[in-house]
Every structure is written in structure tokens, then in C-alpha cells.
């Protein structure tokens, strides 16, 4: 019995340390993004969970730990401007669902562009309504068209919305195996790649070791239009 207790205490210590590392990772990521001129939106949004968050309710004990971390970033001048609309955002999301289609914690990095403009005040409601995090769960293929049949390694996928997300013009992203991000230098590479994606660069460079190169088939079924060709041997 003593060993059982010890193991559980070890798990708790591990989780404390894991969340501490997650916090450091996002702090560092945001600091690097701010050097590139991107700030979190909302500006004072130091909380990572939005309304889909942690509960302290005795009846909601399955939500006593964070399952998903979602952050969104705009250009600093867009945050400062009086304009109430936007048409392009960077987002980063760390999926910690036990039911994730991935076998490891995955940092989803991407850029979403709207056809026209989207409400600046309302955009984060999109997040709390789980539009994005649900994409890692294979139940949203009703949203999509032209289902993609996986062939080989694809690094960046482009999401084309169906009617339910008709205002989204383009949604490009890549998946990083979070456990392989070993230090701030790796984060710098990721930030450079995100900014390149934002700027529609033709070439996006990122350490291939970081990239999740095996997209779960069940997830791929819900995605379409790869924009990066297979790696050539």
C-alpha cells in the first residue's frame, strides 16, 4: 500500500512539474512572438483556459486539470488600433486531451484568415466554443469538404471550411511534438516558422525533428489540401 501511495504522490509531483514547464514554454513563446511584433489577444489575457477551463466544482472533477491551452496573437498595431475587426490571427494550442488523436502532447501552431473581417471582440468566443480544439478529435468531418486521402508525410495542412465555418478563408497549421521542444532555441525556430506562415512565405523552415510527421489517420480524414509536398528521399 505504501508503494501505491508513493506512486500516486510521484504522479502528482510530475504533473505539477509538467504544468510548470507548460507555463514556462508559453511564457517564452509569447515573449519571442512579441519580439516579432505579435501580442496576445485579448491583451490582458493572461489566462490560458477561457471559458472551456478548469473547474473547482466538486461535481466536475474531470475538469480539475487543464486539457487544452489556446492562445491567439495579433500584430501589435492591430491591438492598438481602434478597429473592431481583424482578418488574420496566429494561434497556438497545446492539446492535452487523453482522447487526443495524437499519442503525445501536440503544440498546434497556425494562422487563420477570414474572408473579409471578423469581430475583434468576438474572435475569442470562437475558441471557447471549441471550434479549433475539436479539430483534433475525429468527429468534425461534417464540417469539411474534399476529404484528403493520406499518402506519406505531410507537414503543413490547409484547412478549408465548410458552411459552418464559411467566414474562414484559410487555416494553415503545423503540429509540433511538444516533448521534443528542449529549450528556448527550439521555441525561436517555431516562432520563426509561425511568422513565416503568417507572412505567406514560400519556404517555411523548421527542424524536422520537432514536426509530428505521422498524422493520425483518423485526423487526416478530417483535413484537406496539403500545401507542403512529401519529403523526397
Amino acid at each position, binding site marked *: 500500500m505504501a*508503494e*501505491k501511495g*508513493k*506512486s500516486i504522490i*510521484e*504522479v502528482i509531483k*510530475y504533473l505539477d*512539474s*509538467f504544468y*510548470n*514547464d507548460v*507555463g*514556462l*514554454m*508559453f*511564457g*517564452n*513563446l*509569447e*515573449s519571442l*512572438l*512579441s519580439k516579432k511584433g505579435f*501580442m*496576445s489577444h485579448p*491583451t*490582458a489575457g*493572461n489566462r490560458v483556459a477561457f471559458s472551456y477551463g478548469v473547474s473547482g466544482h466538486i461535481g466536475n472533477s474531470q475538469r480539475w486539470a487543464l486539457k487544452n491551452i489556446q492562445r491567439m496573437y495579433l500584430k501589435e498595431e492591430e*491591438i*492598438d488600433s481602434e478597429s473592431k475587426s481583424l482578418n488574420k490571427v496566429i494561434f497556438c494550442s497545446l492539446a492535452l486531451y*487523453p*482522447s487526443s488523436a495524437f499519442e503525445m502532447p501536440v503544440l498546434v501552431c497556425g494562422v487563420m484568415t477570414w474572408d473579409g473581417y471578423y469581430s475583434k471582440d468576438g474572435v475569442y468566443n470562437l475558441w471557447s466554443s471549441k471550434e479549433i480544439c475539436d479539430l483534433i478529435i475525429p468527429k468534425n468531418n461534417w464540417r469539411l469538404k474534399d476529404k484528403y486521402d493520406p499518402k506519406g508525410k505531410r507537414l503543413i495542412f490547409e484547412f478549408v471550411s465548410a458552411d459552418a465555418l464559411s467566414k474562414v478563408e484559410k487555416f494553415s497549421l503545423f503540429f509540433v511534438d*511538444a*516533448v521534443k*521542444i*528542449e*529549450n*528556448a532555441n527550439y*521555441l525561436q525556430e517555431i516562432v520563426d516558422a509561425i511568422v513565416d506562415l503568417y507572412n505567406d512565405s514560400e519556404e517555411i523552415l523548421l527542424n524536422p525533428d520537432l514536426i509530428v510527421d505521422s498524422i493520425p489517420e483518423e485526423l487526416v480524414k478530417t483535413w484537406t489540401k496539403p500545401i507542403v509536398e512529401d519529403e523526397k528521399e
Partner: protein
Amino acid sequence: MAEVHGKLSEETSSIETKEDVLTSNVFQCLRYMEPKNGIIPFLNEVFNENQRDLESEIKLDPDQEWKIEYTFWPKGVEIGREPDLLIQLSSNEIKYTVVVEAKYKSGPSDKEDVDEESEKQYGNQLSDQFIDLLKGKYRTYDKTIYLECDRKNRFLLYLTKNSTKPKIELKSAVDQFQQNFPESKIDIRKHLLWINWTRIWSVLRKYPNDDFPFKLIRNDLISLLERKGFKEFSGFKVIEWEKKYKSFYKELWFKALRDDFFDFIDENPNFFKEEV
């Protein structure tokens, strides 16, 4: 140090106390270190971080001989605000003053304060401290300090734990100051700087020092900052945990989390047994 200044009295709240203790511990250590390996590169990091807002680039030469005076918790004579630290730097060529307002877990100590005569609104902590800084007169328990450096070389540094610039807090200080002093020749936006505690850690890591006693001071300060969580991300410690707790890190655990836990334990009765 904080105790010497009466900052640990019973009336002080625990958050404020922690803030003052952290500030005194960190800056006392920096004070004991050689400027070229401590405070000078840190201030260069501050100027670099805020470069876009500065009137012109500022880079302090670490090889120059700097005379640096630290005054903890001086009281501004004009408005009466008490910043955490006043740093006065002088070399043969130039003088700078940096007032530090440090935050750990709290935000700015704003209050509502209207001057009945002029009907001007005061009370924003950073704006008030900037007024005190421009007036250039401070008091401590045993002396009065008159700032000698040019007003264009005076800076107010907001030191927080935020990972990025707390724009709302800085903007509200700028707004209140500009409302009260629309004709001011000194643009507060170019003198109100921000940085976080983690940058002190980053600077110290960049400047190793093997000489006694500076090595010990530096290492102690790095440890203190790490203990407070002010460090850069250095990966997830899964491997370290695997080495430390062999009995813990098993792939099975994660299967256990996915499956029904009690069914899993029934199927794996030896799961909690220690491995040798």
C-alpha cells in the same frame, strides 16, 4: 535588507512583503556583483527591449568605470510615491537615473486622487512616480536626494512577471500623465520602460563569472529566480523523472489514464510494485 527598512512589519500584507523581499534580494545581489557582469548588461537588456519606444538607442559601455548608487524605497517629494528602487549611474561622460517599480504577484497600486484646485486626476502609480522622477527629489529615513542627471536620461522601469509587455497598465499611466501635462517636454512614452524578472535570469546566464565571491552571488541569484519560476523554458523533464522515479515513469501509467483505472489495476496487479 527588507527588514532593515521596516518592510516586514505586521501591518504589511504578505503579497507586498514578498514583493519587497524579492526586490531587495535580487537587487542587493546585483549590487554586490561587478557592474559589468550584472546591472549594466541588465539595463542594456532593458533599453534593448524598449528600443522601439526610446528617442535614440542607449547602450551602456560595460567596460567603462561606472559609479552606481542604489537607494531602496525612497519617497518622492512631489507626489509622495515610494518606488522600490532608485539607481543612479554615473561615468565620466554621462549620468542616468532609473527608478524601478517592481511587481511580483500584484498589479499597480492605483488610487483615485483629485487635486481640488487644479481638478487634475492623480493616483495612477506609474504616472505619479514619473512626476516624482521628473521633479527629481527623494527622501529616505536619513537623507534627501537631489537627482543631478538630465531629465532626458531619467527612466521609470516597470518590472513585472508578465511574459510580454502589460500594455493596458502602461497605457493608463501614459494617458493620465499626458492628460495632466499635455505640454510636457518629456514624452512619458519614451521614458516608461518595461521588462520582466526572467530577463535578469537570462542576463546572468549569459555572463558567467568564476571569481570569488561573484560566482557564489551570481549562482545564488540564479537559484532564487529559478525558485520563483523566473527562468526560460528548458524542456519537459520527462527523462529526468524517468531516472529519478523508476517506479513512476512507465508507459503503462498513461495507458492507465486512458482506460478505466480500476479495471486496469485489476488486470495489472503488480503495477504499483517498485522496480529495483
